[in-house]
């Protein structure tokens, strides 16, 4: 919403400075977004007089003018037909910035003649569309007067952001009312006095349907349409509107002055009476924007007997609009249901000042006042005869009233205010207050946003000033400090730092990915956005890996081939709120470390990914020894070099491994690339142990004994089988089993491999004798051979 300071003064009697007004506007919730001083744009322009002219030697249409300015005389070349001795106009000196095009004026030679400065047209100063001649001023302006003063361009423009709840401030008068209530002056009386009617009829007006409950119209005959007066054009230009003709300008002016949209029809183009009704299926019309709109039965239209004239409250029609030739004009003032206008405007994608106001809620009881004001201004400016006003439907409705407990102000804000002060604020804003233990408040018709007591509290506090609300410490919630995170939140928190502690770098990637990526990772139906920001961000991700793989590729492309990224975020399983699963996933590519002098670094492999997954789980208390390594379940992993980690085979806790070569190809990545996915909520909450004490620690004084075994087994036998068998051979004595060597080849049968185990025996009661050790060794050998189908190597 834009307006000028002088416009505000039409409604507000105040001595407040511009700065004071600007500051107060923001403090009462009408946030000032910009203040523009037109005088600043005209700095460097001044009043000067042409004292002599002579023809340009080489150009018929140019003259060389001698110009008298405050600084002396100077010569310039001018092409304006009206340039002549004695003319006082606006001189731009060298270095001035021309408002219309932003160019800096430099000394120039025009057809061989030096030109010093420029006499300006209205168009060059962005004040009018007049290109044909230079500005001619009243000779009462002294030479050297600043252009801003001579041109009346001293009126600062203020732009404020209006929140959707304040349609009353989409008119200057509403803004003035708020400022007056806030102590910045007095709201001027509103005097609307239309001329007397000639008692002749206006076209018949009627309403049907729910969208338009009141519609008034009046005919003004014999008008002389013309450009609107300068003061009106200046104000409209100042707020960015283009003056068109007086009839249109008057409706625009009232729209901004009162927040009251109006429409004018050329009455000679109408057929019969005018009606507000729902559109019929198949109807269409050409709007002022010269586009054709196909209407639906949800649209409310203004129509005459021949058809649709305009889309009600949104945009008028091209055919019935007024022009400079208009002699008889029908003025429309109506009220439309905000929601219907919003839906209709949204359906047709039409943005207009009228829609903007009607969908936020125009004052229904301004129908007649708005019409009268328009009639008064039209007759004042364009002449003509006012006919009888026709009004269909009902303008007056019972006002909104509510009971208000004044103590509510203190309860909601902590402020203690005098009741009289609170009532004064409300009455200044147009509320009627009936005193009592609870107040009976009548809400003014222009405040559709006021629904309850909290709204009244807001009115009082914003005008009183939120800066006066005293800060007060929030009381302690619990007597003792206790954790505020849930167990699952703590798990995620610790997993994040455990993964980063393994050298992985946390990324945050988009929750949406391309359809191709999503399909590759098995996206469920229905997870496609209807209005994606771009085609490659169209589907909710079923896994974090596509985003991370794409990120890895971008880093490789930038020349950083060793990638170690992870992310903790949601995977989307179905198009249902809550059908999402938190995952901690990561991708490693290239080498485990940069090149170094100790020897070539290892390329990343599936074991690195498994170690990441196990570390994330271990950080949450899930011991690696409690996990089984199961075959892979996801198609995006290399089938022979990946797996799943689980305590219970039915519930995978993590997946890991090399990425499938076909997936790498899809992402344009070269390998090796490995990945892991951990699902934190699979770490079920265990039973809380009593107290924090650890179980007793029993340390043996007896030295452990270590024995090595090597088994030859078929090459497809999993090492885990041997380890588990060995560990199970004597659960009391065996405290640890480690794989310390794996090899294939020399000395082994085709299709077999050797796995070497180091078994630690921890004696409990007495040092083990050789006989006892041999007995355990035999048990281990037997158990491993039985489980693996292999044999002890000699």
């Amino acid at each position, binding site marked *: 919403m834009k307006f000028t300071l002088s416009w505000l003064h039409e409604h507000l009697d105040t001595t407040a400075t511009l700065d004071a007004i600007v500051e107060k506007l*923001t*403090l*009462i*919730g009408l*946030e000032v977004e910009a203040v523009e001083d037109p005088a600043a744009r005209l700095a460097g322009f001044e009043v000067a007089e042409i004292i002599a002219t002579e023809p340009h030697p080489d150009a018929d249409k140019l003259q060389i003018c001698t110009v008298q300015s405050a600084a002396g005389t100077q010569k310039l070349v001018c092409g304006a037909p009206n340039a002549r001795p004695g003319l006082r106009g606006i001189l731009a000196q060298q270095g001035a910035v021309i408002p219309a095009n932003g160019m800096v004026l430099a000394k120039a030679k025009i057809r061989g003649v030096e030109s010093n400065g420029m006499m300006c047209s209205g168009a060059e100063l962005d004040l009018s569309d007049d290109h044909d001649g230079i500005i001619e001023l009243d000779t009462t302006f002294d030479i050297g007067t600043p252009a801003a003063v001579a041109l009346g361009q001293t009126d600062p423009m203020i732009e404020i952001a209006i*929140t959707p709840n304040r349609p009353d401030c989409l008119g200057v008068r509403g803004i003035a009312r708020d400022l007056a209530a806030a102590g910045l002056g007095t709201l001027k009386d509103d005097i609307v006095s239309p001329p007397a009617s000639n008692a002749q009829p206006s076209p018949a007006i009627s309403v049907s349907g729910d969208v338009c409950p009141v519609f008034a119209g009046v005919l003004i005959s014999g008008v002389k349409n013309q450009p609107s007066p300068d003061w009106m054009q200046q104000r409209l230009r100042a707020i960015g509107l283009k003056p068109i003709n007086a009839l249109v300008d008057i409706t625009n002016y009232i729209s901004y002055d009162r927040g009251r949209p109006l429409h004018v029809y050329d009455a000679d183009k109408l057929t019969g009476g005018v009606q507000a009704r729902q559109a019929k299926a198949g109807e269409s019309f050409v709007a002022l924007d010269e586009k054709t709109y196909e209407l639906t039965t949800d649209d409310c239209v203004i129509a005459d007997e021949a058809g649709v004239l305009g889309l009600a409250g949104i945009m008028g029609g091209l055919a019935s609009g007024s022009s400079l030739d208009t002699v008889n004009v029908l003025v429309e003032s109506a009220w439309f249901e905000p*929601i219907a206008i919003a839906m209709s405007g*949204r359906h047709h994608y039409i943005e207009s000042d009228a829609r903007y106001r009607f*969908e936020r809620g125009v004052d229904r009881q301004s129908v007649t006042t708005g019409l009268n004001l328009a009639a008064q201004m039209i007759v004042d400016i364009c002449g003509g005869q006012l006919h009888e006003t026709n009004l269909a439907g009902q303008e007056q409705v019972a006002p909104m009233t509510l009971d208000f407990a004044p103590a509510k102000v203190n*309860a*909601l*804000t902590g402020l203690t205010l005098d009741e009289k002060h609170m009532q004064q604020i409300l009455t200044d804003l147009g509320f009627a207050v009936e005193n009592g233990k609870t107040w009976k408040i009548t809400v003014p018709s222009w405040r559709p946003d006021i629904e*309850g007591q*909290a709204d009244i509290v*807001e009115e009082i*506090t*914003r005008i009183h000033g*939120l800066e006066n*609300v*005293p800060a007060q*410490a*929030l009381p*302690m919630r*619990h007597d003792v*400090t206790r954790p*505020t*995170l849930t167990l699952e*939140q703590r798990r995620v928190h610790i997993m*994040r*730092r455990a*993964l*980063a*502690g393994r*050298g992985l*770098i*946390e*990324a*945050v*990637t988009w*929750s949406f990915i391309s359809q191709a990526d999503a399909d590759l990772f098995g996206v469920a139906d*229905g*997870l*496609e*956005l*209807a*209005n994606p*920001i771009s085609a490659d961000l169209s589907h*909710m991700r079923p896994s974090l890996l596509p985003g991370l793989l794409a*990120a890895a590729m*971008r*880093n490789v492309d930038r020349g*950083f081939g060793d990638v*170690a990224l992870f992310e903790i975020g*949601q995977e*989307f399983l179905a198009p*249902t*709120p*809550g059908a*999402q699963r938190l995952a901690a996933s990561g991708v490693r590519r290239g080498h485990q470390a940069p090149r*170094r002098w100790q020897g070539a670094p290892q390329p990343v492999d599936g074991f690195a990914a498994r170690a990441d997954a196990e570390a994330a789980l271990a950080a949450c208390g899930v011991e690696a020894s409690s996990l089984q390594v199961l075959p892979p379940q996801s198609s995006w992993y290399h089938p022979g070099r990946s797996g799943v980690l689980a305590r219970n085979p039915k519930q995978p806790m993590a997946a890991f491994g090399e990425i499938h070569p076909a997936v790498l190809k899809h992402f344009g990545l070269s390998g090796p690339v490995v990945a892991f996915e951990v699902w934190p909520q699979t770490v079920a909450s265990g039973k809380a142990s009593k107290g924090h004490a650890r179980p007793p620690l029993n340390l043996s004084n007896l030295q452990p004994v270590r024995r090595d075994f090597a088994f030859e087994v078929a090459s497809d036998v999993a090492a885990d089988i041997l380890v588990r068998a060995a560990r199970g051979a004597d659960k009391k004595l065996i405290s640890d089993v480690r794989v310390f060597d794996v090899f294939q080849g020399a000395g082994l049968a085709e299709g077999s491999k050797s796995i070497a185990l180091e078994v630690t025996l921890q004696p409990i009661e007495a040092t083990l004798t050789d006989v006892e050790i041999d007995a355990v060794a035999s048990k281990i050998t037997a158990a491993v051979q039985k489980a693996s189908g292999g044999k002890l190597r000699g």
Partner: protein
Amino acid sequence: MTAQDNSTELESSIVQAIDAAANVAALEDVRVAALGKKGSISALLKTLGGMSNEERQEKGPVFNQLRDRITQAIADRKQALEAEALSAQLSNETQDMTLPVEADPLLSGRVHPVSQVMDELSAIFADMGFDVAEGPDIESDYYNFTALNIPEAHPARQMHDTFYFHPNEEGERLLLRTHTSPVQVRTMQAGNQSAEEGAGPPFRFIAPGRTYRCDSDQTHTPMFHQVEGLVVDESTHMGHLKWTLQAFLAAFFEIDNIAIRLRPSYFPFTEPSMEIDMQCRRDGNQLIVGEGDDWMEIGGSGMVHPAVLQHAGIDSEKYQGFAFGMGIDRLAMLKYGMPDLRAFFDADLRWLKHYGFVPLDVPSLSGGLSNKTLAGK
């Protein structure tokens, strides 16, 4: 020649041999030649047996002292030779200790600034007794709008640039949440329905998370992060809101105090509604928080609208409270100086290394939220 003369001569020849021994083995040969069973000194000592008492009393101490001096000389020489040998060995055992050592993965990994700031928020608000609530990214129209007092066709809906899904079989159009505010109603409803003792108000929680708007330019990304805060009980008012915001911002920016300005505004889910402006100063392109006389908008807030409480199944006559919302990415940019929001989600390793946090840098109130002052330059 007397035995005395003999022994003097013997001693000097042995001492010469000791000094001449070039290594421990040669010294051992000298020792055996002197002190061994058949050694020269052993032989000399044996002569004592054949002497008269008087002679033995005279010669005995002389010979024994000679043996002791030689033994000591050999030991001294041995120690010297060993020291020489060790020194020679060590001088051959040098390494170039300037060669680089392995980087510790603990110091090379990084936590994303958004996660770090979320942890900072949790730490600060934990101190004020706020739980951390969460909610789904895919939302229903009801929780994202209607329950927050934003009915269909409300102009405020248009400001949200909502991402929608295609209508499902029931004709329902789900969406991506445009703000974290749906978590308010979900959390209060869940609290109300919970069978636990003390369910229902009071509520005090923050809700950080991802949010989405169909908007992308220099300063907007289609996905971003917000934090919501809510307190509902019987008496919390706007003065508490003001204090909470001041206390939070001072703690977050790690300055003693910070002026804020609550400016009347409009949000459908709060009444009264206020924008939160924070004191700042602009110095060229730099923005300095907590000083100067300029203001910058940092979020929205207000007293929870009675309609929202009613949607959550809470008696709006009895209970009241405040809510606020702020952009997490924006807070991170203001505190840590990232110039461009879009880089947050690009996963450029260079950016993540530079702006990320080492995993040991865990925000806490006792230790300070950030570790910028642990080491001097």
